[in-house]
């Protein structure tokens, strides 16, 4: 299959026409969902388009977070919808369609990450907690005085946070995204990544510690 037509710069697309059906989509009522599901299983084109319009936004956001590359994320979303279309018969309804599609997107993105090793990763060790010879933590005085809302409202600071996460090495970044952002359980992350639950916990803790170190200026500048 020629994948050239789907390689495009998403950022330059700007305002796009969105069909009313996507706008009108309610937060998935059960009845509406089951009707959509029946039609999807029957291979209905309109239902598939509705499915794409309803869920491509979240799928694209998930793929972008994991891949840090808009073009690759678009490819990934396309692959995810094709996989969903082919495997809709296997969807058992134990989760919502949205969750199911998101998992497929995550798996597609992880496959992409395995194929393409990241280029610019910072070493994690210098960002991990430091202890002295007496096993005492070495930590500057930190003052958590601003609320999360205040910090996030500052575009520059918000950028520092997302960039901070992006800098983390893949094996840690992915665990942080899946656990803290996608809100998967430790067990789900372990089975998705085919690593032990212990490894998930350790990587998550290291990822959070490293991110905390990256964000340290947030708490340093407000002295007592």
């Amino acid at each position, binding site marked *: 299959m020629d994948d050239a037509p789907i390689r495009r710069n998403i950022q330059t697309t700007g305002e796009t026409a969105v069909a009313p059906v*996507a706008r009108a989509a309610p937060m998935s009522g059960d009845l509406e969902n089951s009707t959509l599901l029946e039609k999807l299983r029957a291979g209905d084109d309109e239902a598939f388009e509705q499915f794409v319009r309803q869920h491509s936004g979240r799928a694209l*956001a998930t793929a972008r977070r994991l891949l840090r590359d808009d073009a690759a994320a678009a490819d990934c979303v396309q692959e995810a919808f094709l996989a969903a279309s082919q495997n809709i018969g296997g969807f058992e309804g134990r989760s919502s369609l949205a969750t199911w599609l998101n998992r497929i997107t995550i798996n597609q993105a992880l496959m992409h990450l395995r194929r393409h090793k990241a280029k610019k990763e910072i070493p994690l060790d210098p960002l991990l907690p430091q202890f002295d010879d007496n096993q005492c933590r070495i930590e500057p*005085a930190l003052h958590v005085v601003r609320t999360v809302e205040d910090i996030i409202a500052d575009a520059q600071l918000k950028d520092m946070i997302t960039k901070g996460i992006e800098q983390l090495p893949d094996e840690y970044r992915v665990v942080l995204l899946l656990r803290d952002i996608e809100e998967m359980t430790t067990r789900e992350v372990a089975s998705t990544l085919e690593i032990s639950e212990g490894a998930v916990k350790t990587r998550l803790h290291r990822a959070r510690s490293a991110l905390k170190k990256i*964000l340290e200026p947030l708490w340093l500048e407000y002295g007592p």
Partner: protein
Amino acid sequence: MTAPQRPRPARKRALHKFIPGLINCVQFEEFMVNYFEGTLPPARRMSFNAHLKVCRECRDYLAAYKQTIELGKAAFENRDGPLPDDVPEDLVQAILAARNTPG
């Protein structure tokens, strides 16, 4: 206004002598994983909290660590919203076309 204080290991070591069972910062660090998973056994949670009372470094660290988790979540919010404006129509069309392409 005082300069940030250096750790005072000597005082902390003295505390360890008088309060047996008090964990040190390295052990505190090891407990953190299960503390956040909610799987720290009660006895260890007591040691964890006791350490926080006597250790400024771990208190500051934990507070910043907790806010880090919340900040990460908040920076990527709106993930469950409806179709955002930035899903390009040509991506939607590419998906629809690809589905109808055999192979």
